[in-house]
């Protein structure tokens, strides 16, 4: 016999569902307002010639894909995409390597672990603006400590951020210096969770340090490695503040990232329509890059 509707409505299962929906709804609303709405707006603007000031009087016009075609046909934008991808790949590789070595080192020492851990984390705790300005002072051709050391060694002084050959490398070095501790922190936590018994078994079987690393340590922390790589990829791809403060994208566009390009050609001139199109392209690129890691991590 079929139960009345009111009875069905009041069953424990439906009450639980209602409660669940009620609990999730506020989060969904916040997400929609804070994430979906700006994303939709950015997407809509990317098809217009919206300029913050000019559109106050005349409004924005729908220009279909013009912003996208302008961007993709612009050599400086293409160079910025290339720079960003190059920077992301190099930064992630170096940060993972340095962070991993740091984690292994700290995990292996028995005394002073806490102190070393704190000291190594310091660069990551500093605000990016402070880091950028400190490095700019250290590398200053006039009063920078680096050039003073070079001078005392009778080596030529170099203008690190104004030379096409060194500017990109310097920005990369500073980013690795600041972000490797983040990788260290995550991998160090993962290393703590590797069962000691596996290492003991390996030792009994006569495995050397390299074999232990390849067959025990890395397989045990591969989830953390993938997560680090994913987070660092997303973060490196959005690189802006260091470039903006240290080089402004120069010299000769050699350090210009997508965000710096969009700042110069979209935000500074208040051409938000053009900037929005760039932001959409950037989001797609980040998603493509990240999806590789996500797929790997989920699989």
């Amino acid at each position, binding site marked *: 016999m079929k139960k009345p509707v009111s009875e069905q409505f009041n069953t424990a299962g439906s009450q639980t569902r209602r409660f669940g929906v009620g609990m999730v709804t506020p989060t969904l609303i916040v997400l929609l307002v804070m994430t979906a*709405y700006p994303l939709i707006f950015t997407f809509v603007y990317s098809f217009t010639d919206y300029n*913050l000031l000019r559109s*106050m009087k005349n409004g924005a016009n729908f220009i279909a894909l013009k912003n996208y075609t302008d961007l993709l046909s612009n050599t400086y934008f293409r160079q910025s995409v290339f720079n960003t991808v190059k920077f992301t790949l190099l930064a992630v590789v170096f940060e993972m390597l340095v962070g991993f070595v740091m984690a292994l080192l700290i995990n292996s020492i028995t005394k002073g672990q806490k102190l070393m851990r704190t000291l190594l984390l310091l660069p990551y705790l500093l605000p990016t603006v402070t880091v950028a300005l400190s490095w700019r002072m250290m590398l200053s051709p006039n009063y920078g400590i680096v050039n003073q050391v070079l001078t005392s060694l009778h080596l030529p002084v170099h203008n690190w951020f104004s030379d096409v050959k060194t500017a990109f490398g310097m920005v990369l070095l500073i980013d690795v210096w600041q972000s490797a501790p983040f990788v260290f922190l995550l991998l160090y936590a993962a290393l703590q969770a590797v069962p000691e018994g596996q290492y003991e078994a390996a030792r009994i079987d006569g495995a050397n340090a390299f074999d232990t690393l390849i067959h025990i340590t890395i397989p045990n922390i591969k989830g953390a490695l993938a997560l680090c790589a994913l987070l660092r990829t997303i973060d490196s791809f959005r690189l802006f503040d260091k470039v903006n403060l240290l080089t402004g994208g120069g010299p000769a566009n050699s350090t210009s990232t997508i965000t710096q390009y969009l700042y110069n050609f979209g935000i500074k001139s208040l051409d938000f329509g053009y900037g929005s199109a760039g932001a959409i392209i950037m989001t797609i690129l980040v998603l493509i890059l990240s999806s590789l890691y996500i797929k790997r991590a989920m699989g």
Partner: protein
Amino acid sequence: MKKLLSLMLALTLGLSLIACGGSSGGGGGTAPAANDTEAATEESAGDAEGGVTKLSLILRAGTYAEVIKECLPAFEAEHNVTCEVLELSEEDLHTGIALDAANTQGSYDLCMVDGSWMAEFTANGVLANLTELGYVLDDDIIPATTTISYVDGNAYLAPYYGNVTVLLYNKEIVQAAGYDGTDIASLDDILKICRQAQADGKKGFIYRGDSQNNFVVDFMPILLSFGGWVIDKNNKPTVNSQEFKDALNFYLELIATGDAEVKDDLIASVDTGAGAMGVGWPGWYTPTADTTADYCAITGAKSAGAKAHNANVYGIWTIGIPANSQNKELACELLTYLMDKDVQKSTVASGGVPCRYSSLQDPEILATYPQYEVVCKALEGGVYRPVIEEWTQFYTILGTEMDSIINGVKTVDQGLDDAQAQLEQLMGN
């Protein structure tokens, strides 16, 4: 349940779109409203009833803001108000004023505006009409500095800080090359001094290579000395003209003697004698008899005996009132006070550079700060950057191409042709 949830989500999205989109005046569906006067009036009335106690100022950080801040206490005491000052870098100041202009009720009552933003701001109704508010630019202000202040006979901005390009040089290096600073008569003299410095193991000419704006502005005095400019009288770009190419080729020779540095390093280089000279601004450096560096006006002559052009580029910081200010009358009183000749004269000791004869030709001031004679001459014969609405995009495009040329990625012809094509597209030619 799914339907209910979908309905709720759709409602939320719809409400947020309506709320955040605001009322769109004019033709644009997505554009924010310029001025919702009704709401503004209501709010303003509320303020008036409670008594206005706060004025917000958005200023260019550095000496420019410092000298204004120094004058505020007297005004605050006299008018029973408090003034809140927000100090920003040049680019953030531009964006900050523009973003606030989109609001019905502005957050700022007085803003500092670079002369090159004038066209963009007045064309889009960002600034209040000072003439309508009763402010008059007096005759004591150097006339050339007020040329951009007016639109259709109405004043919108008052020239506050007389920044104008000067040649900042190291005294010792210049003397070693056989000059004393006052006799640097042409670009050829500048090149000669810089080459001598390079031969002596020092840097010659130092330029700012850290942003598109700096690339363009540092080059402009050289371009003007060659009789060139970036646009013609019909606002058509002229960056691939022969004058421009000649000037850029000369500039490449000149900067090959030195290095690209950021502003602080440029000043330090010239001050310490690591470098010979560079284009600077009076706001950067206060020379005295004891300092190692000094500055002079660029004569505008390419070589000895050649025609001298007006080659000093204005970087004048003007002050104005945002059109959406909630306290325009009081802000106008503040602006009038800050522009007062005695108040402006009092700022000289703190690094202020008024665009006024009464300050720059004052015998007492000149006795302590003789460099103001140079500044006064430079201000009398200065040139504003093009007063065009697209100036930000213009210098970004030109500066990017100049960066490529200077760093050897493009040839002069190739880079300037590329810049010309992009600028013509920008200007709709």
